């Protein structure tokens, strides 16, 4: 993969359901290596639909969702080898310990070379307390499970990382640690596409911010363009403007 080539690429991505609901309407964007793209938007804006299209959980009506140049709906298994995913509410297997969950999902992601020490190291990196490593996930808090989810994504060592509302429900400390972790992943050259409601954290960490509403990407700006702007104000302005236009 040449540097600068997009890792995530949405090209005219459209999804219309059988009941004629237009969930996504010709959305196009790209995310390069070492870049974080934050999709902002309310419920039903199309953020999760976009992620589902990248993971081929649904097929596009039009357009393509590409990961590392591979269209997800055409060659889903190859596309998925290039992406790690962290969902909004990481549950994992409650009867497995943190280490067992890491081991299972790493091997599922094709990584069979890791030792127990590698798992401990990555759990330390994401900030999970040492004593929790060998405990079953049954009693873990949401923040702890989220850390395990991130650890799984790190272990997969894929060039692309998809995050669906990763900071929702996290306490401020956990949220801060999470942002720090994203920065370090970006510094490792990962391409990160995240959906979020959290305007504050999006501005803090994203290189590019996209605002989605009613299935459309209505704004896309780089961090530099956003400097000096109140993103919350901008968000409300764009959403209001889009609603007015639609009316």
């Amino acid at each position, binding site marked *: 993969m040449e540097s600068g080539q997009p890792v995530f690429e949405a090209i005219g991505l459209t999804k219309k359901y059988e009941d004629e609901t237009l969930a996504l309407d010709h959305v196009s964007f790209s995310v390069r290596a070492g870049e974080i793209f934050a999709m902002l938007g309310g419920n039903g804006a199309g953020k999760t639909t976009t992620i589902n299209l990248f993971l081929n959980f649904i097929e596009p009506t039009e357009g393509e969702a590409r990961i590392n140049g591979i269209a997800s709906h055409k060659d889903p*298994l190859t596309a*998925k080898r290039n992406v790690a995913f962290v969902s909004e509410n990481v549950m994992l297997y409650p009867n497995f310990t943190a280490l067992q969950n890491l081991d299972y*999902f790493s091997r599922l992601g094709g990584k069979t070379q890791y030792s127990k020490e590698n798992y401990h190291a990555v759990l330390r990196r994401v900030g999970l307390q040492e004593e929790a490593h060998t405990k079953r996930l049954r009693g873990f808090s949401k923040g702890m499970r989220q850390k395990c989810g991130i650890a799984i994504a790190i272990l997969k060592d894929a060039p692309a990382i998809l995050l669906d509302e990763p900071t929702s429900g996290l306490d401020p400390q956990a949220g801060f640690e999470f942002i720090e972790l994203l920065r370090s992943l970006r510094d490792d050259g990962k391409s990160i596409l995240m959906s979020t409601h959290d305007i504050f954290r999006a501005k803090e960490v994203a290189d590019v911010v996209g605002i989605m509403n009613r299935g459309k990407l209505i704004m896309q700006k780089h961090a530099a363009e956003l400097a000096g702007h109140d993103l919350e104000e901008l968000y409300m302005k764009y959403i209001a403007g889009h609603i007015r236009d639609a009316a």
Partner: protein
Amino acid sequence: MFRLLIEKELREIIGSTKFAVSFGVCSILILLAFYLGAANYLASVAQYNAARAENLRQLEGLTDWLAVRDYRIFLPPRPLTTLVSGIANDVGRTIEINGRGDLVAHDSRYGDEPIYAIFRFLDLDFVFQIVLSLFAIVFAYDSINGEKERGTLRLTFANAVPKAHYILAKLIGSYAALAVPLLIPLALGSLLLVVMGIPLSSNEWMRLGVIIATGIAYVGVFLTLSILLSSLTQRSSTSFLMLLVIWVMSVIIVPRGAVLLAGRAVSVPTIEENNAKKGKLNAQLWREDREAMTKFQPSSSSDPQRMASEFQKLMQEMADKRDARMKQLSDRLNEERTNAQQVQRGLAFGIARVSPAATFALATTALAGTSLDLEYLFRDAALAYQQAYAGFMFKKTGVNLSRGMIIMRTESGDPEKPKSINANELPVFTYSERGVSEVMQAVLPDIGLLLLYNVLFFAGAFVAFLRYDLR
């Protein structure tokens, strides 16, 4: 990848609390079923031997075979009967043999000890049919939609996992997680039979093996059905509720409903109805015979000896005719009843086989020799014995018991001290079960049906999962 998915399935199930609880309960119940079965068998053998000894003791001191009364034959206990009781406790185990007349079995286990009839016995059939099928549901009702609810399905399929591999691994893993731990208490239970000195022939060991295999196939039906419904629904609570309804229908409603339906569709004359018809004919024949007796004209009224002889001859002829007509009616009524019963049973079992539980019960009772066949086989063996008994008595006494003659004997001269009869000379009653090949031939369609249910439900689950919404 495939192996990893199976391993995960096994580890997830075996590491769960529900597995620990269900494995513990299953092990206790299975071992208990074997222990109680063995203990019951030993008690039945003791009871059987005591009854036989008492039967022979009653003949002690008799000097005339004609004085033998109330000679009985007994259904011998069989080890498998106590492991899968079927109708064994409902049918009479004793038949009184008189050399003629209808044979009636009495002294059923439940008749003797009605308390056991209330909740029935804890046997292997019960453990498989009720307990293990429920555990299969508990294991697998959320196998797919539960993963979706936990979010692990999305996470799994964010990796390069083919859906076909995943669902196949799910089935194999769930099956192995259920079947392998089941085999442990089953093997221990079989060992218990040996330790307790239960004499199982190789034939019976083979049948027991097939019973266990059939049980695993039956549990597999509920396992695959659970995976199917879990693949068809989005919420685990929905699939659990649906499975409970199906389980109740399969285990309780359908088998009983099938019998009721067949009972309404095909009427079988009751024994009382047949007895009434026989009684009516008997009364009519006696009336006719009485009239014939009143019209009796001896060839010579001056010779009383000759007159008595002619009267005796007339009586005998009338008795023969009466017996022949009674037998004719009895045979016809019995045949009609048996034929109607066959049709009714065929219909009832045909409908009931929609339920895997009924199919399983029909197969296992046939394998254990406790199906409805038991009653027929015992009756047929008793009929054969009755003939042998009548032949023996004829040889010993010159009296044909099957014709119901009345013998008048006169004694004269110096009575010689009579010798006691030797009861061991009586023919020995033997009860034989059907041969293995015959039984296997009879149960293969049921086992095949259970396997077909497995295949159909799994195929359904496979197709449903390929279309499953992973979001």
